[in-house]
Every structure is written in C-alpha cells, then in structure tokens.
C-alpha cells in the first residue's frame, strides 16, 4: 500500500487507472470468494427461514393437491396452536427439561472440570473417559439405553433394587408417564456432560494462578477460593454453557423419537417432535411452519439473553 501511494503522488495521471482496476479486480475476486457460501446460505438457510414466516400464514401441505389450492389463513395457526394440547404439553416438557437438565448438567460439568483439573496421576485417563459419551451418536446410544431401562429385567432396575435392599422398583421406566421423561433426562445428561466439562476445563485453565496465590496468602479456604475466585472468573463460560445447554434442550428430538416417540400419553413429547409430526408425518406444512416460528422466537430470546448478560459484565 505504501508503495502504490508514493507512485500516485509522483505520477498521478498514469497510475490512477491501474489503481482503480486493481480495486475493481479486488472487488470481483472478493465476491467470487464469498459467492459459494453466500449462495448456499441463501438457498438452504435464509430462504427456508423467510419461507417459514410466509407458510405459517397459509394452509400449505407438503404435497400440493391440485384440487385444493393453498389458501391464506392469516394468524389462524398462531391462535390454534395454543388449543393444541400436544403442543402446549410439548412446550411445557421443553421448559421442564431446561429446568432440570440445565442446572444439573451444568453443575455436574463444572464439578467434573474441577475434578480433572487437578495435577494428580492418571488424570488424563479420567478426562478421556468422561469425554467418551460425546463421540457416541445419540440415535445409537438411545437404543442401548432402552435395553438398560428394560421394565422387568433391566440392569438399572436391578441396580436400584439392590442398593435399596429390594425396597424400590422394578419400575417401568419408558412406559410410565411419570418416569419416562426423567429417564430420558438422565441419559441426555450422560451423553452431554462431557462436552460442557471440556469447555469449563478450558475456562479453568485460563484463570491466572496469581489469583489463587493471593487468595491463599489471605488465608482463604479451598471452598472460599472456589466461591470467590473460580466462580466469578468463570462467569462468561458459565453463561455460555447455560445458554447453549438451554438451546440444546429446546432442540431435543433424537432420543425421544427413538425411545418413546413422545409417549406414553404425550409425557415425553417435545416441540421438535411435534413439529416433525405435524409437518412431515401429517404433512401440515403451514401449521408446522407456525410452530417453527414460535420455536425460533424462543431460541432467539434465549440467545439475546446471553448477549445481554455477557455484555453487562464488561
């Protein structure tokens, strides 16, 4: 840049043109670099996103029927969904999942991270083991867990019976409306906690050691160090973990589809399962789009929450 500037200064009329064409070339090359990704995002993310809003105002079906033209129905779907007991139940289930899994999984992940952040022998071995469920596929391990949750002879029933000296169980885990959702929560935590543990571990390792040394000089106990050094230093990490776990909870689908299909009696139905059932299985694309829009707005509000909380700290 410095060279071209001195050139323009010495010989204005001759070099202004190459400069301009270089800029124009740069523009063209830049757009060529941008084009593939932008085009794909436009067709497969932005277009369907916009379409969701439009379709939600129509009675569009998946396979158009030439005898029944698609009509504009206004806000009908947005009013009807609150009378749809399955959808209301699905949303409540998602919020219940958030209320239980987010605090449990987040604090468990932090606990594991603190545990494997110690400088003791074989710690890498334990780190590796705790991370293993993350590399399994949810749809596959959900099947394995179905066997573990077997109502009569499952190993989980047997374990509970043994440690309670035969007082508790056997339970019909996935067939009992009260237990099916907690059962799915437990296996979700099992599969997901390692991911958050690693994020917390990275956060822990960024805390400057001097902070702990200073706290020790002041005579702070281990708990006080955790409470007044570790936790405040992990503030942004925690916000990230809480928000991303919350969003994941709203996307809940694979394990429910495999293990219970939303049953028994909608006990485990989720927003995503209901969207797929309405839009794909019963082909009501218009209605499913309205559900998708509401789903998106919820996720958006949660994400905005993250930005607000993270910013307030700076």
């Amino acid at each position, binding site marked *: 840049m410095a060279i071209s500037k001195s050139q323009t200064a010495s010989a204005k009329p001759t070099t202004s043109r190459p400069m301009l064409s270089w800029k124009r070339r740069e523009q063209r090359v830049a757009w060529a670099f941008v084009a593939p990704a932008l085009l794909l995002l436009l067709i497969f993310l932005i277009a369907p996103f916009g379409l969701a809003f439009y379709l939600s105002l129509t009675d569009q079906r998946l396979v158009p029927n030439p005898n029944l033209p698609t009509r504009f129905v206004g806000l009908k779907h947005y009013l009807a969904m609150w009378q749809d007991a399955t959808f209301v139940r699905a949303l409540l289930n998602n919020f219940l999942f958030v209320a239980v899994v987010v605090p449990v999984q987040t604090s468990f992940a932090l606990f594991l991270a603190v545990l494997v952040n110690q400088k003791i022998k074989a710690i890498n071995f334990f780190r590796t083991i705790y991370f293993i469920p993350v590399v399994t596929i949810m749809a596959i391990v959900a099947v394995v867990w179905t066997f573990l949750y077997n109502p009569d002879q499952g190993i989980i029933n047997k374990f509970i019976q043994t440690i309670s000296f035969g007082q508790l169980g056997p339970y019909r885990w996935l067939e009992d409306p009260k237990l099916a959702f907690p059962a799915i929560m437990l296996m979700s935590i099992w599969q997901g906690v390692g991911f958050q543990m690693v994020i917390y571990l990275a956060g822990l390792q960024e805390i400057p050691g001097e902070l702990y040394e200073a706290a020790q000089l002041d005579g702070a106990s281990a708990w006080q160090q955790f409470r007044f050094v570790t936790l405040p230093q992990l503030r942004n990490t925690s916000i990230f973990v809480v928000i991303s776990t919350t969003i994941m909870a709203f996307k809940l689908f694979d394990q429910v589809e495999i293990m219970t299909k939303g049953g028994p009696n909608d006990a485990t139905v989720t927003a995503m399962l209901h969207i797929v059932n309405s839009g794909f299985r019963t082909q009501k694309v218009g209605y499913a789009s309205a559900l998708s829009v509401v789903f998106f707005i919820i996720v958006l509000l949660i*994400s905005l929450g993250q930005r607000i909380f993270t910013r307030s700290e700076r």
Partner: protein
Amino acid sequence: MQRPAIEPTKRWQKSSRTFGIYLLMTGIALFTLFPILFMLVTAIKADESQILREMSTFAAFLPTGELSLQNFRDVFERVPFAQYLINSVIIALSIVICGLFVNSLIAYALARMQFRGQKLLLAIVVALIIIPFQAVAVPLLLIVNQLPWFDGRMTWLDSYHVQIIPFIADAFSIFLFYQFFLNIPKDIEEAALVDGASRFRMYSQIIVPLSRPVFATVAILQFLTHWGDFLWPLMVVRDPAVRPLTVGMQAFFGQMPRQWGDIMAFATMVTLPVLIIFLLFQKWFVQSVASSGVKG
C-alpha cells in the same frame, strides 16, 4: 507451599483424601462407561437367551458363556449395514471437506479483502449463527422436495446430495475461520501482494498452511454434528441405498422380534470406529470442543 516435613497425621489425611478423590473419579468413570461396556459385551455373546438371562446381573458386563462374532454376521445378513456405513461416511466427509473450503474462502474475504457490502455481510453471517437448523427443517423439506437435479429428477428426496449440500455452508464455521484469520499477521501477505501474487494464491499458500488448528477444529465440530444426523435424513430419505446409519438403526430396532445381541453388534460397529479415532486424536477433539466455547 507445604513445609518439607509433614506430620504423620497430616500425611495420613492427605493420602486418604487422595484415595477419596480416586474413588469418586472411578465411580463417575463407571457411570460413564457402563452403557458402552454393556453394549460391547452383549454384542459378542452368541446366545440370545443367555443375554436375556444375564441382563440384570453383573454377568452382563463380563464376557461369559459362548462368545462369537455371530451377531455381527447376523447384522450384515439382516440389513445392508455396509451400505449404511458407506453412506454415513460419504455424507459426513463430503460435508466436512466441502465445508472447509467454502467456509474458509468466504471468511478470508471477510477478514482480509475490501469490498462493498463487507460489513453488512459480516453482520448477516453473525446473525445467522442464531438460527437453529431445526427451525427451518420443515420449509426446507418443502424446498428440496421440488428442487431439480442434474439427472432430470424434479426432487432432491432420496439422494446423497439432499443430505450434504444444505449443510456445507455453516455460519458458525465461517465465524471461527474469520476470527482465526484476523489474528494472522498481515506482513507476509503484504510481501506477496507486492510480488503480484493473486488473492487465491495468498489464501491457499499463506493462510491455509498457517491455519491448520482452525481447520482441524471446524472439521471435528462439523463431523461430530453431522456424523450422527438423524432428524433430517428421517424426513428426506426412504431408500436404503442412501440411508445413513442412524436411520438404519431405527429401522433395525423396529424389526420384531428384537434380537438384542444383533442390535448391540450394530451399535458397536457404529461406535467403535469413532471411539478409536477419538482416542488417537484426543488432543484435537478436546481442543476443538474447548474452542467452540469462546464465541459470544
């Protein structure tokens, strides 16, 4: 720091505390591993009635009775498992490889070049990170149902490309590349610019070699996301010829009567290869996941 000579009671306290920590960590490790161990052991037990007899005993975790690979053979006989595996590998690798190229290219333009609309484009990419795929799945189904393809078919359903192309461009991957490129010093490129190197050469010969960590991060995160894709293929694929492992497993699981030995053999063959890759490239996996947390 500790004084050099520790009193006996303190030393005893310290070692019993260490023992407690190891006990706790082992307990959690057992909780983490028991479903996987259960799966592996059940898969090699030949006798289905033995599996059912032992499923509630400690023997479920021990290789007892007659052991064989019969269950694995059964899987190959009952379903086109090899086909499912090839499909999943093709789909996941195509998304990862095409995605690395396309997403890093746009990120390079955003980080290094000057063009009209650059700031707006960057803002759009960042905003798109928020939109979850799940929110657009249904309208996207409507779109791909009516898209033409080069072979003359007027729908994308039941194909590889319907499972690949929508996932190549990824806003979060672009953002990760963009952040990494911003931190690369500009001097080398400026020298190349004076030498008259083209932008594509600067990208491919300067930036890409300097950016291996972020390429690995994006590759691993995209692989972990799409290797287990289930929702989308469930909607767009019926034909077993292009079906991935996840949908194949669901179909296999639904076949009655259930042969648990076979099901666990299926699950083992899906889980074990990735587990081995993970154990070999552990550091990369852990770093990738850790760096996914720095956004925001």
